[in-house]
Structures are given as C-alpha cells and as structure tokens.
C-alpha cells in the first residue's frame, strides 16, 4: 500500500479543490524561517513533521510558532529527528487558523457490502478507531453513481453544520469522491476537517493508494518503510516474507497454507519466526532465492510445506537442491511436498538426502522436536541425518 505523507495528500486535495490552510514544505530550519519571513506562510503558524505514523501531536512532532525565527528553530528541532523509527526529512508549515469545530470525513472500501463507504463524524481530531460507532455516520456509495445530494445532506446533519457551510461541505465531499476514484485510493481521510469562519478547511490528510492500481499511477512509489531489512530485501525480489521473532522458518505457498502451517506449529508448541510465501511460482531460481533469504534469517529449523497446484513440486525441489548446493544450510530441514508432480519432487529431494512427509501433523511434530534440539547447546545436526524418512502415506 502507498501511504502518502500529509503534504503529498494535500497536494492532491489542492488539485481537486479541497480548501487548505496556506502552507509550504521546508527541509531546513533556514528555509522554514524564510518561508515565514517572506510571508509565504502567515503567522502564527503550525510546523508538522512529515512522517507516516499517527499520534504526531502527542509525540512532539507538531509545534507552533509566532515569529519567523521561532518557526526556523522549531523546524530545526524537528528535522532530522526520528519519530516512531522514521527520520523526519520535511516539515509542513501552515498558517494556524481560528478553528470553530473539528470533524472527520473519509471514503474507504466496505468489504462486507462490496461498496465504497463514506464515513463522517462530528468527533473530529481524534483517531477514528477511538470514536464510538454510534457517533460515526456510515453511508455506502454506489460506485457507478457516486455521492448524491441527499447523502451530502445526511453528512451535514450528522456534523451539525451551519447551513452557510453546506456549499463548502458539498465541494469537499465531491472532491473526496473524485480522489477516491481517480487516484485509485484505498482510503481518503480528512481528520480534522475544520470549520473556520463558516467554511471547511482540511487541516490534515490521509491518502492511501492501492498497490494493485499503481500501474495507472506511476507517480506513486510503493512503500517499504514498515519492513525489516530482510523483509525489504524479499519485497524487492517479489517474495512475501514476514519476520515475527521465533525459531522456526516456514516456507510455504499461499497465504492459507502458510497460516495453517503456523497454526499447526503453534499448537504443537513450536515458535514460528519467519514466513516465506512462495505463492504460485514456477521458477526454480525464485525458490533458490527464497531459500537463501531464509538462511539469512538464521532459523533453528526450516519447514518447507508445499502443496503444488500452480506450483509444481519438482520445481520447488529443484530450487531447493540448487540453493543447498550453493549454500549448504546450517539448520535442519523438514519437507512436506505434495500435489502437482509430487512423485518427481519427492524423488529429487530424496536424491539430495532430504525426506518428505505426507502428514502435516507428523511433519509439524518433527519440526518442533528439531527446534527443541536446536535449542540444545549441541547445535544443529546436519540436514541429511536430521531428517528421518517420512512415515507411510495413505
């Protein structure tokens, strides 16, 4: 998902006509001071760290200034700092407006109804997750027709807006809808949407663009900020990789089978730590790459649980054998390779000294036993010896 920083979201807001406070981005204290001194940002002003995490207000990432010098020093105090692990490279300076009230509005996808959902609340300025459900107006929107006037009137009523602000609300909601559709957004949120002198102004922006639609929007780049270094490396190679801290590495194919493997290992008392989802690959090289990535996570034991549908077992087996040849693994390996070309795959692994289980429960028990061995000071046994021949399949 592509989550845009506040100022980038506001650039989109401006393009679609949503009223904003006057403001500019600065990347240095001097620049911040000059912007204010030159009158490009009116005083008093707000200085906001341009980071993607929420809770900036409490975290000191939002400051105020009354003079150009103060704006410069406050900006300097924020820039370069880390906020929830993210380095602050830009600040947004904006005029501080006399706010009468703060509202919440957003558009997102309602998966249950399979329709866009407009949400609005008179309780603006706080995380919407903390607002009680009955204080949030939710209106499903027909994607082919968009927002219509009675829905906008419902929002006005829910917000308790003065009638003078209605044209402003109508324009804002229509812009929100156009952004949602035209920019392929997963979420467009204005929180707070402030009432300032009878009209509405967007004080913050939250815009998330859908990954799958990026082919239509080359101007947005995919976000990898939340990932661990290894996850980011996997991400670059197009491999789904998740680290959660545990001993067992799991290589599976598909989200469902990955989760089911995790469920079984946990039930058997294991501590899965790394998941690597091969998806529907047909490419032995990709399997080898995945295996080498897994090695870098230093698991105590690795469980390969593959059911071949699109993926062929022999492809996976060839990739594994190739990877083991390039970098002999320092951990024991348990395999369960079933499905498409199962016989061929099992045979390839067998020739490379790796046995394959048929039963998931048995395989999982073996993995957990090896994990416990791995915790012993004796260190991991070599794979060819550590892996017993699988029990008889039915």
């Amino acid at each position, binding site marked *: 998902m592509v989550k845009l920083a506040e100022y980038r979201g506001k650039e989109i807001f401006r393009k679609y006509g949503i009223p904003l406070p006057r403001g500019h981005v600065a990347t240095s204290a001097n620049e911040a001071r000059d912007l204010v001194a030159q009158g490009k940002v009116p005083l008093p002003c707000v200085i906001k760290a341009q980071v993607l995490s929420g809770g900036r207000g409490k975290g000191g990432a939002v400051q105020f200034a009354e003079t150009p010098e103060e704006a410069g020093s406050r900006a300097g105090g924020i820039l370069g700092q880390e906020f929830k692990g993210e380095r602050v490279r830009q600040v947004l300076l904006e005029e501080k407006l006399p706010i009468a009230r703060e509202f919440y509005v957003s558009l997102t*996808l309602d*998966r*249950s109804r*399979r*329709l*866009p959902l407009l949400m609005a609340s008179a309780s603006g300025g706080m995380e919407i*997750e903390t607002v009680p459900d009955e204080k949030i107006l939710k209106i499903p929107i027909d*994607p*082919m027709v968009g927002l219509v006037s009675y829905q906008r009137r419902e929002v006005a009523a829910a917000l308790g807006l003065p009638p003078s602000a209605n044209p402003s609300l109508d324009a804002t909601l229509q812009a929100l809808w156009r952004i949602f*559709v035209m920019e*392929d957004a*997963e979420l467009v949120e204005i929180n707070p949407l402030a009432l300032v002198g009878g009209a509405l102004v967007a004080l913050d922006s939250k815009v998330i663009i*859908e*990954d*799958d*639609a990026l*082919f*239509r929007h080359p101007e947005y780049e995919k976000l990898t900020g939340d990932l661990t270094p290894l996850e980011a490396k996997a991400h670059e190679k197009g491999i*789904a990789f*998740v680290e*959660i801290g545990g001993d067992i590495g799991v290589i*599976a*194919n*598909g*989200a*469902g*089978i*990955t*989760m*089911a493997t*995790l*469920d*079984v290992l*946990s*039930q058997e008392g294991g501590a899965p730590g790394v*998941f690597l*989802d091969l*998806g*529907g690959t*047909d490419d032995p090289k990709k399997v080898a790459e995945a295996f080498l990535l897994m090695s870098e996570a230093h698991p105590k034991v690795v469980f390969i649980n*593959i*059911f*071949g*549908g*699109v*993926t062929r077992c022999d492809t996976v087996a060839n990739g594994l054998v190739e990877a083991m040849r390039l970098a002999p693994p320092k951990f024991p390996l348990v395999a369960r390779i*079933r*499905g*498409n070309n199962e016989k061929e795959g099992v045979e390839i692994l067998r020739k490379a000294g790796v046995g394959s289980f048929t*039963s*998931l*429960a048995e395989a999982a028990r073996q993995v957990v036993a090896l994990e416990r061995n791995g915790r012993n000071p004796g260190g991991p046994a070599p794979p060819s010896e550590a892996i017993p021949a699988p029990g008889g399949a*039915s």
Partner: protein
Amino acid sequence: MSVLVGPETKVVVQGITGHQGTIHTRNMKSFGTEVVAGVTPGKGGSTVEGVPVFNSVQEAVRATGANATTIFVPAPFARDAFIEAVDAGIPLAAIITEHIPFHDMLSMLYYGRVHGTRIIGPNCPGVATPGPAKGSKIGIIPNMIFRPGRVGVISRSGTLTYEIVNSLSEAGIGQSTCIGLGGDPVPGTTFVEALEMFHNDPGTDAVVLVGEIGGVAEEEAADYIHSRFGKPAVAYIAGRSAPSGKRMGHAGAIISRGRGTAESKVEALTRAGVHVARFPYEIPDLVRQVLHGG
C-alpha cells in the same frame, strides 16, 4: 449433480497463449473439461493444446457455444477482458488473475450483475466438479486431488483448499463441486452466495468452508447458515495464531480493529451449528461425523 460447472460447461480460455493459460488449458482438458476455445487478440486462427484460438470472445462464442470463461489475462487488462466476456453473453467467469485493482472489481461486479454474469474470483483457483467419467473445471485447481462425491467445498484460500480437498479424497470422501472464491477484498462471489448454490443442489449433502482471518465473510456465512442453510457444514479458519496486523500474503489476511479475527469467526460459525476444525487434517473426520452421525 453439482453447481456452476458440469458436463454441459463449455469453456473459453481468455489469455490462452500465455504461459499459465496454456498449462491450465492442458490441465482442464485432462480433467475432462470441454475447453472449446481460447481467446488472444491477434492470435486468432492458431491452436493451443488442440483448442482453436479466436481474436475475440464473441467470435469464440459464435463458433463454439462457449458458456463459461477462465480469465488469465494480466491485471491491467482483466476488467476489459471480463466485460468482453459479458458482452459475448457468457454467464460464468472464473478470474484467475491476481492484483486486479478493487476499483476495477467494483465496476465488474456491477456489470456482471446487470447482465447476469457470475464472477468467481478474482485471484482465485476457480471451480471444479469431479466426475466419475469426466470432470469439469474452470481455473487451476489441481486435477489429482479430486474424488467425485457429495460434499461441497467453498474456500477463500488457494493451496490450502487443495490440501483439504486432497485429504477428503484420501479419506474416501468425494466432492460435488469445489469453489475457490479467492482472497481479494472484493470477491465476485461470497461464501453466502456459494452456500445458496449448494443449498439448492440435490447432489450436495454437506459443505466444507475454508475461511481465513480478515474481513467478515465467514461471520456473514455463519448468519446465513444459522437462518437458512439446510445442510450440515464443517469449517476451518486459517490464521488462528497469525501475528496481529501483519499481512500474510494478501489483503484478505489482515486483522484490523478486532473485527475479522479467528475468534470472532470460529465463535459465529460454532453458534450457527457449524463444526469448526482446529486443524485442516481434522476436516475429513468432522465431515464423516456430520454425514453419518459418527
């Protein structure tokens, strides 16, 4: 008996000349499916796996009477490929393609509804009905896992479904039809819609639901089962021990705000009288129990 596909199904493959299109055309045919046509614009007149290729779905339908499609075309072109199938009068489309923008899916859903074309997927393995003589399949579910029988399977997962269907077959429990809904945020067919089909199918005695964390489709299925579904059901929910907030491969598997958790799904299904397996390999026994009171 079965739902969605059967001996009367005549399949066109959109994107047949691509790598996956070609492989799965072969697989569908060897399952027994009547794959009557392929479509790749500009490749009309050639053949793939013995199947004639046309430049448009309309040409394919006119020449062969195809009444179902399997769509393999890349995500940026999938919406238009689907609309082409609808305009050609095809009433059933399995969309295998992954990474279709949900905004596209919203308009596809509208278009399918208005014109009476059912969508399975996207990002799904398709639908398969095994047969004693020959089966029928749209999509990519592996052939060798099936055994003809009277249990319906509905799943949001891909590979896990194969695993589970395979375990049913190994346990001697055959399937009427297996429907892979796909895990995308906007599926063309939901659990509830698939359950309705099995409810009306005299060839199905019980249903296995394979769900996963995220979304509320399983909770809605529970409501439907509780109020209207007339057959026994067994379920498995993947992701009970998944780390909160981490994506497990696709958007359907993210937990947000305490909704869509494994707990809420298991609880809703249990309350609706569904037997919920803790692990996939418990499913065959549970099915045997609901079928035979064992």
